[in-house]
């Protein structure tokens, strides 16, 4: 079975290459159908492997199985989290491709296969990243998914905004990738190894952590946190999401960003968690400080957006913060909670982006104020939007609610309050949008005179505005929401997830299975009520909620100037170093 692990990467790559050849003579529907088949087949394979991943599989590609504990080859890790992320990435790619059926108006001549082929390569990169058990191999797939994502983000290249968004994404993420590469160089210099577990053992054999360990930790974490859009590495994300085509947003927010967090979890657990790495207390401090910052900044930025795609992007930033807090407490329960939360969030967030795409293609705008009351006719989309917002708030029995409840219980104390506050603010913002856009509630919003990103005057991605919403564009979000619901209600599912996570995280020590508790249900209901109340307040008494001055300066940081973002990246790397420093100097 483990021999089949590399196929999760090889099949989409082969599919993409053959699609490029074939699509020169293929019509668009045939090319898109072929791509969906390849993507779906890979997803099926990932699920089959996932079901057989206990005990975890490992595969030395090319048959370079270690002799006397030494190998020159590359190892793949087919455990629950790795295969789970690969399956999630594959399923979401399939959903995004079905959603974009007959979507783009202008594939370059004789290149009908370009967009689906790039999506397949994106899938291959994400699967490779999820399965990597070798640090350099992890970097290679990190680069593949980045390069493809830049191109996909810039699809509508006619618009200068698109070029800006894709370019900042490319510059910031590339710098993160260079940081990772330097970090790999340092670890290699110390240990002479590239496989994650072997590096970890090499560090432990060398003795306690020193400046080199700290530098490697900072550099590698910088790259991964850029990908996961943690503050202050997050600036590329709203800019890229605002301009990327909707199906691409579904993948960026639904799974690529979470893969960054997954990478942090994987690399810390295998490389830095031993006595030669970074002590637990310091890692916890790093993740909790960054997680809290990210959740607060993301949630506040989310509330004050009127560009709906930016609003959803900022909510992704806030959720990244929550995920970082969840894995940052370093308990098996926290890991279980985050795993469930990521699964639920992927479905909900992708569904919300899909619904926003309908607005964009129908009305040529994603501006909350300009669209006020205009989408009354789109009843099914409105219902899905509200359900998605409530699920985002943590309405039981959605998977988001279960994941959030388990995580909240694991973190405890003031962090629970913060988690509730962040979800209330982000879900409240989405509910506010739904109330205004789909139901026309509240007074007609005034035109704004201050400078801000509005979201009007956008080009529909379908070429011309659609008069009837195609079935695929409504079916996909419906299925995604149903999947997010299934994560919460399917009996035994949470137990399976927890089993997979603990088998690779806490060394096979299976702790109690996560389940609904009265406490968790109450917290979820409270979050939902608070979010609804906040949205109602925003709709009825908008004057009470005018932006205070400090939020203005926070928003001004999102300047769109790539130099600013690079400066913040440097500051962020130093912050990481400062937070982890005590453990290194103390030993």
């Amino acid at each position: 079975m483990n021999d089949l692990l590399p196929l999760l990467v090889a099949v989409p790559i082969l599919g993409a290459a053959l699609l490029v050849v074939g699509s020169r003579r293929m019509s668009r529907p045939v090319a898109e159908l072929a791509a969906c088949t390849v993507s779906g087949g890979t997803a099926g394979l990932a699920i089959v492997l996932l079901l057989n991943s206990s005990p975890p599989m490992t595969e030395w590609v090319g048959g370079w199985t270690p002799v006397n504990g030494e190998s020159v080859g590359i190892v793949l890790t087919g455990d629950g989290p790795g295969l789970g992320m690969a399956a999630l990435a594959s399923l979401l790619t399939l959903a995004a491709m079905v959603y974009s059926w007959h979507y783009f108006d202008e594939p370059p001549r004789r290149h009908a296969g370009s967009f689906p082929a790039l999506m397949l390569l994106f899938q291959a990169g994400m699967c490779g990243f999820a399965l990597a058990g070798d640090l350099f191999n992890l970097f290679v797939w990190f680069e593949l998914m980045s390069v493809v994502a830049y191109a996909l983000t810039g699809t509508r290249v006619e618009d200068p905004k698109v070029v800006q968004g894709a370019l900042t994404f490319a510059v910031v993420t590339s710098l993160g990738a260079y940081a990772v590469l330097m970090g790999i160089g340092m670890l290699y210099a110390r240990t002479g190894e590239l496989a994650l577990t072997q590096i970890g053992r090499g560090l432990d054999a060398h003795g306690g952590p020193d400046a080199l360990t700290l530098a490697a930790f900072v550099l590698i974490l910088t790259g991964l946190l850029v990908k996961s859009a943690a503050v202050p590495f997050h600036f590329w994300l709203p800019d890229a999401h605002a301009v990327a085509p909707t199906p691409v947003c579904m993948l960026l927010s639904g799974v690529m960003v979470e893969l960054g967090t997954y990478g942090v979890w994987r690399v810390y657990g295998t490389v830095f968690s031993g006595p030669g790495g970074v002590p637990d207390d310091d890692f916890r401090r790093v993740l909790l400080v960054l997680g809290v910052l990210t959740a607060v900044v993301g949630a506040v930025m989310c509330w004050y957006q009127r560009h709906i795609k930016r609003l959803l992007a900022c909510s992704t930033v806030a959720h990244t913060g929550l995920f970082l807090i969840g894995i940052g407490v370093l308990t098996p329960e926290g890991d279980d909670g985050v795993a469930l939360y990521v699964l639920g969030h992927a479905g909900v967030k992708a569904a919300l982006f899909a619904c926003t795409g309908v607005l964009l293609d129908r009305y040529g705008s994603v501006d909350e104020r300009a669209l006020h009351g205009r989408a009354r006719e789109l009843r099914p989309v409105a219902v899905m939007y509200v359900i998605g917002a409530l699920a985002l708030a943590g309405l039981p029995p959605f998977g988001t609610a279960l994941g959030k409840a388990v995580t909240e219980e694991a973190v405890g104390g003031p962090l629970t309050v913060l988690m509730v506050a962040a979800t209330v603010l982000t879900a409240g913002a989405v509910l506010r949008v739904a109330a205004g856009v789909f139901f026309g509630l509240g007074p007609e919003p005034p035109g704004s005179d201050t400078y801000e990103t509005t979201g009007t005057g956008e080009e529909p991605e379908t070429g011309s505005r659609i008069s009837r919403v195609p079935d695929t564009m409504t079916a996909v979000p419906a299925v995604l929401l149903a999947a997010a619901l299934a994560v919460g209600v399917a009996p035994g599912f949470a137990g399976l997830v927890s089993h997979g996570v603990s088998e690779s995280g806490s060394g096979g020590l299976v702790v109690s299975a996560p389940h609904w508790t009265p406490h968790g249900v109450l917290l979820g209901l409270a979050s939902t009520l608070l979010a609804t109340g906040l949205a109602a307040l925003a709709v009825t008494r908008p004057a009470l909620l005018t932006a205070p001055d400090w939020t203005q300066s926070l928003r001004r940081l999102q300047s769109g100037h790539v130099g600013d973002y690079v400066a913040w990246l440097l500051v962020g790397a130093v912050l990481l170093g400062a937070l982890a420093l005590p453990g290194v100097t103390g030993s």
Partner: protein
Amino acid sequence: MSRRVRLWLVLTGGAGLAVLLVAACLNLPSFGGDRHPYGDRAVRASIARHTANVVSSVNFDQRAFDTLGEMTILFGAVLGCVMLLRQTRDEHRARPEPAEVAPPVRRYALLVLPVALVTGIYVIAHGQLSPGGGFQGGVVAATALHLLYLGADYRALERIRPLGVYEVGDALAASSYVVLGLAGLLGSTTFLANSLLPYGTFNTLSSGGTVPLLNAAVGMEVACAVVLLLARFLDQAVEIEKENGE
């Protein structure tokens, strides 16, 4: 953010990072040491499989899965370029004018072109034996063709460079790498296993098992990809113009 604030942030962040990196480098193993755990293992593995060029053995045998990723990055970059540098709705194509080329430049370019092309192919073909290989040789071969642009003009280059052929070549080369990997999976149960072909006699062209084949696939992929990338950028610079005549 004002320039001044940004400058201060960069200086603070850069200084902090510089301190960290210098401190880390002081802890690196000193230069010229005799402990090379990976290097020793890689050389042993390479010689055991009769591959004279250890770097190629690492690239196309021991860590061939990394190379699959790297090749795919290039392939994805080409696809991305096709999509981003397309002729958009507000642009049109203008025929490039023939250009005057100084006779010495023309003579030199036409003289060097075949030499460079053969050099590129040689570097690819001997990848398993001597320094070089698919990546390096592919770039040399692709640049060789562009000497025609310097020596003659853009239209001459376009005549020897039918992009469709190169696109198909690029994709087929990438697929053949994966197919060779799959052959390993079917033949000996591991993806990219180098156990299908005999390892041959050390230091001959046919040594190294599948290394020469994977190397050739990468060579073709890189050559086609570089031609295509340059073509897209040259197209933007030479042929594609804004609709209102910028």
